[in-house]
């Protein structure tokens, strides 16, 4: 009986030693972490004679060893090693989340962010590991995203241009749905230079007229006056304020404007002046109440103001016209000694 027991134990021990060792019981491989794959292969295979398996396989160029483990051993002698490879993390900062994800995947990495509200247009502000840092293939680069964007300056732009400028920064326009492309932005809220979150909208107020829509008016003012004979009366100096008798016909480029006063409005509509006065007073009270409630919508306010703006063009009443005669043959020319040949000319009739 004891003999049988001893034989059984001996067989068990023999079987144990004859079986390939479990990885957990094998010694760790030499430290090759941080080495390039080529350096690690030189050490593990060529120097120690180990078999080398890689993750991933095949090996991407420029890979580094991120970690390594013993794959197999016999009698505590390592026979095979598995190395986990990694690469350098590309610089993703400044990219949109969409672009950064694609770039990271192309390099063999994933991305992760703790900002579920972020859209693909948000931009990478920071990344971990930093650009150029090592990360095992298949691991995720942690991204910190920034959704803020600078509001573009839209005033003066056509609707088409404004839409494009806004879209370039991940923003949309509000108030331009039915606009013609050649209308221009007269006001915007928030103003250019402010910050919005990507996906937000910019309120815009559009012009009634486009900069090139109406035909060119005939000359604004009487043709330049200097053609008049010398005995004509001198030109009038520019007036400091609009003449009472000015009319749109005298200033054809002036855009349609609101009537200049409530009184004229009343008379035009056949409303008694007293009633018009009451209406104006009521309107002022309403405006005061609206302001008191704190309601403040800049675009609407400016829309009202727009109607009250008009332009009055004034031609230069006394342009500075001079004649410069050269190669004249009058005695005055000959007596006038000018050292620079290029300036042998007469300046006459200075105003």
């Amino acid at each position, binding site marked *: 009986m004891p003999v049988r027991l001893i034989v059984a134990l001996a067989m068990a021990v023999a079987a144990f030693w004859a079986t390939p060792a479990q990885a957990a019981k094998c010694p760790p491989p030499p430290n090759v972490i941080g080495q390039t794959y080529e350096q690690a292969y030189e050490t593990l295979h060529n120097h120690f004679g180990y078999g080398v398996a890689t993750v991933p396989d095949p090996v991407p160029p420029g890979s580094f060893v991120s970690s390594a483990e013993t794959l197999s051993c016999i009698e505590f002698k390592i026979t095979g090693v598995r190395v986990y490879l990694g690469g350098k993390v590309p610089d993703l900062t400044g990219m949109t989340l969409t672009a950064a994800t694609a770039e990271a995947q192309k390099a063999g990495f994933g991305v992760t962010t703790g900002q579920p509200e972020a859209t693909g247009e948000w931009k990478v502000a920071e990344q971990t590991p930093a650009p150029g840092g090592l990360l095992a293939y298949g691991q995720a680069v942690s991204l910190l995203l920034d959704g803020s964007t600078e509001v573009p300056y839209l*005033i*003066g*732009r056509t609707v088409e241009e404004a839409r494009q400028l806004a879209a370039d920064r991940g923003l949309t326009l509000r108030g331009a749905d039915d606009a013609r492309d050649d209308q*221009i*932005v*007269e*006001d915007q809220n928030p103003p250019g230079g402010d910050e919005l979150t990507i996906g937000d909208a910019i309120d815009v*107020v559009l*012009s*009634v*007229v*486009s*900069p*090139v829509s109406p*035909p*060119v*008016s*005939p*000359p*604004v*003012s*009487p*043709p*330049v006056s*200097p*053609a008049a*004979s*010398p*005995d004509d009366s001198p030109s009038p100096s*520019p007036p400091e304020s*609009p003449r009472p008798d000015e009319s749109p016909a005298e200033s054809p*480029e002036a*855009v349609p404007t609101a009537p200049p006063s409530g009184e004229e409005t009343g008379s035009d509509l056949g409303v008694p002046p007293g009633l018009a006065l009451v209406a104006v007073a009521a309107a002022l009270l309403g405006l005061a109440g609206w302001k008191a409630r704190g309601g403040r919508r800049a675009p609407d306010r*400016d829309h009202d*103001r*727009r109607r*009250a*703006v008009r*332009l*009055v*063009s*004034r*031609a*230069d009443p006394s*342009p*500075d*016209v*001079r*004649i*410069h*005669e*050269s*190669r*004249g*043959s*009058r005695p005055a020319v000959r007596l006038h000694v000018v050292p620079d040949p290029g300036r042998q*000319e*007469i300046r*006459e*009739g200075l105003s």
Partner: protein
Amino acid sequence: MNLTINPNPGTAALALYDSARGAVAAAARVVRDPQVMSTICRDAPALAGQLVAQLPEAGAGLLHGITLGAVLAAGWQKSRELRAAAVRSHEDGRRGKIEPVSLAAHSITSEHRPYVEVYADERKVLTITFSVDLTFTIGLLSAAIRDGRLVTLRPGGDCEVAVSWGVDGFKIGESKVPIRIPSVAVPLGAGIRLARPPS
């Protein structure tokens, strides 16, 4: 009847642009620059948007209102050569006779500063000044003077006009183009007066 000079192109706008709309479009391109408009509207920034829409049209109208014939006439009126001949034409024995005068190559410059007044709520809030500078180069001018009046003009040689315009210091456009100045003559008693008869 006065002596009317009708060169081609006829206005400062047409010397700069092929079409009347060209001036509007050029001005619009300039005033749509936020930096330009912020400068122009520094005293009334809230009006910038409206002015962007309206100012090009106004500026183009001013440019179109500068007729080159009128400027040429004003320049030649200031010629000492022509005025001296006009004085001579009043002398005894010369009255009623043609006094021929030739001007060799010369140039005429003309500086215009038209402006646009901007009224908001019927209150003037801005004055925006345009600049239009013209330089004519005329190869030769044969003129005739009778009784102190310029009655015949016959330009010759190469003539050209350089035009530049801008708003509030910002250049909108410039060009130099040949200009054709047709000869003109007026009947007896008409013409541009250059010298009064001696009293």
